[in-house]
């Protein structure tokens, strides 16, 4: 048999594969959602182009009313994030930065920083759609586990390591939506803010939400809205495109640029690709840092913003075996300072890194977790024993989908 025969055999066998019906409606719905997301990257690519300028001008428009439902009293003040507030989970076991080790029911799938401790989401899958088994627990530094008793369903919530709130959106009665801030210390709703906006682009049940300081950010069809949850003021966020998942941290937002394609083809498949990721001040829309990243279309490093928004980790290409053992072809990742643009390489392992609440790079090893100053490279070690089973989850990563 020749290699030509192998090709024939593959085609023949592939033709025997049972093909399910094409979900055209679902494709269209997802396409609309992604189209909105892609707009933000294109806006970044064209920089201060005409369309961008027009958009920036329009973004100054105050969209909505201050909500009479926003409650002023009893709202928490922001506190300095706890440097030891990080967590590393393996299966059901969570190692806290304080040195405590706790177990939670179910497998940890995602973690969120709050000033009251790490909130963990447990469930069957990393994603939330179609999964009614997600549960939320708050783990304080002293090792106490509090069942948050909240069934969010398929929503993307937001937290801020300086605040004790979980922010998310629900359908409103007198408005399209309500932003809800729920106090993770008590489980009670601290405040609600009504806002309007069509939401058809996302796959969630409500607009995805980020929380950063006095503002929550929500992605609706025609805008990313910036909501001052203390005053109830709702505005279009300057510089942030519509219909995208906000991931604002430390007041900053990372905008990724996608590799260029023209007429359905990568412009030069043999050439290296350089894209420019950008960090914006989410409150003003001001560009804080452009980060040029070089790779190929498939292997362009993946940027991740730190929990305090002051650094960007450029994770390299990685490959995995059938058994799930993954390695980086180049096990070093640059961390870029948003303030200075300086880059510092760190040696990282498969899925074993994250960010502390105050923006230090976490590097997880079998017997310790290093918390490293991203600017100087100086690290502080905390002993851990990772001998359990199940995939690792390191706090400071975004495991939403």
């Amino acid at each position, binding site marked *: *048999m*020749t*290699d030509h*025969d*192998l*090709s024939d*055999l*593959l*085609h023949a066998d*592939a033709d*025997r*594969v*049972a*093909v*399910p019906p*094409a*979900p*055209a*409606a*679902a*494709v*269209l719905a*997802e*396409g609309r959602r*992604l*189209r*909105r*997301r*892609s707009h933000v990257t*294109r806006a970044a690519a064209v920089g201060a182009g005409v369309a961008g300028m027009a958009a920036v001008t329009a973004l100054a428009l105050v969209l909505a009313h201050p909500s009479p439902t926003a409650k002023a009293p009893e709202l928490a003040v922001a506190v300095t994030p706890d440097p030891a507030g990080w967590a590393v989970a393996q299966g059901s076991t969570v190692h806290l930065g304080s040195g405590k080790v706790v177990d939670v029911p179910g*497998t940890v799938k995602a973690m969120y920083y709050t000033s009251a401790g790490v909130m963990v989401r447990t469930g*069957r*899958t*990393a994603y939330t759609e179609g999964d009614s088994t997600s549960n939320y627990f708050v783990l304080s530094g002293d090792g106490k586990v509090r069942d948050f008793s909240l069934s969010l369903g398929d929503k993307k919530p937001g937290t801020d390591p300086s605040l004790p709130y979980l922010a998310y959106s629900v359908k409103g009665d007198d408005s399209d939506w309500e932003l809800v801030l729920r106090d993770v210390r008590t489980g009670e709703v601290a405040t609600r803010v009504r806002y309007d906006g069509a939401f058809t682009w996302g796959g969630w049940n409500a607009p995805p939400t980020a929380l950063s300081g006095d503002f929550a950010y929500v992605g609706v069809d025609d805008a990313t809205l910036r909501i001052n949850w203390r005053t109830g003021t709702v505005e279009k966020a300057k510089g942030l495109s519509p219909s995208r998942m906000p991931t604002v941290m430390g007041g900053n937002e990372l905008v990724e640029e996608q590799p260029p*394609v*023209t*007429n*359905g*083809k*990568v412009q030069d*498949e*043999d050439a290296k690709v350089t894209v420019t990721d950008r960090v914006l001040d989410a409150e003003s829309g001001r560009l804080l840092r452009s980060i040029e990243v070089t*790779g*190929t*279309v*498939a*292997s362009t490093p*993946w940027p991740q913003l730190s929990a305090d928004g002051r650094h960007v980790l450029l994770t390299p290409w*990685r*490959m*995995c*075996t*059938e058994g*799930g053992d*993954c390695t980086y*072809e180049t096990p070093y990742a640059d961390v870029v300072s948003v303030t200075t643009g300086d880059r510092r390489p760190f040696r990282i392992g*498969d*899925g074993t890194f994250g960010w502390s609440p105050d923006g230090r790079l976490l590097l997880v090893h079998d017997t310790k977790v290093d918390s490293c100053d991203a600017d100087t490279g100086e690290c502080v070690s905390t002993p851990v024993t990772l001998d359990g089973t199940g*995939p690792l989850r390191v706090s400071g*990563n975004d495991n939403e989908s």
Partner: protein
Amino acid sequence: MPAPPTDDEYAAFVHAAWPRLYRTAYLLLGDHGLAEDLVQTALAKTYASWRNVRSLDAAGGYARTVLLNTATSWFRRPSWRRELASDALPGSSYDADPSDRPALLDALRELAPRQRAVIVLRFYEDLSVADTATTLGCSTGTVKSQTSDALARLRALLGDSVIPMGATHD
């Protein structure tokens, strides 16, 4: 900017393009559920990028490129890897029927993802070594060595009569 297709036009394109893209995805991933997700993602990205696609005639090629790039990006995403490494994979709606599981496809599933991708790209999608390397984001030397390793593995699984020595496709 080119006018986007109507919903009916794009739905018709999805129905037409789906089978071939699905088969490629299944060969790459070896899982019906993931293959369905991949093709759906590729077609959705194609719709979302209509500014670049410009016409329905070009959409098929664009979707294929997106599918290959997306599959490659999935291989490197930590969350995807972690999920694959766990026992918590979403259940497939299309359970295996032994009579529908040709030996070659079974053997493909025994390969590591990159080896499987190399075989599919080169022998099913008929990409050159250079194009395969570009798609996977690795060197041509890696493609060649992965091809050699993959064929050796297939040969061990299926026998020399199916995958003879020298079937290197270079």
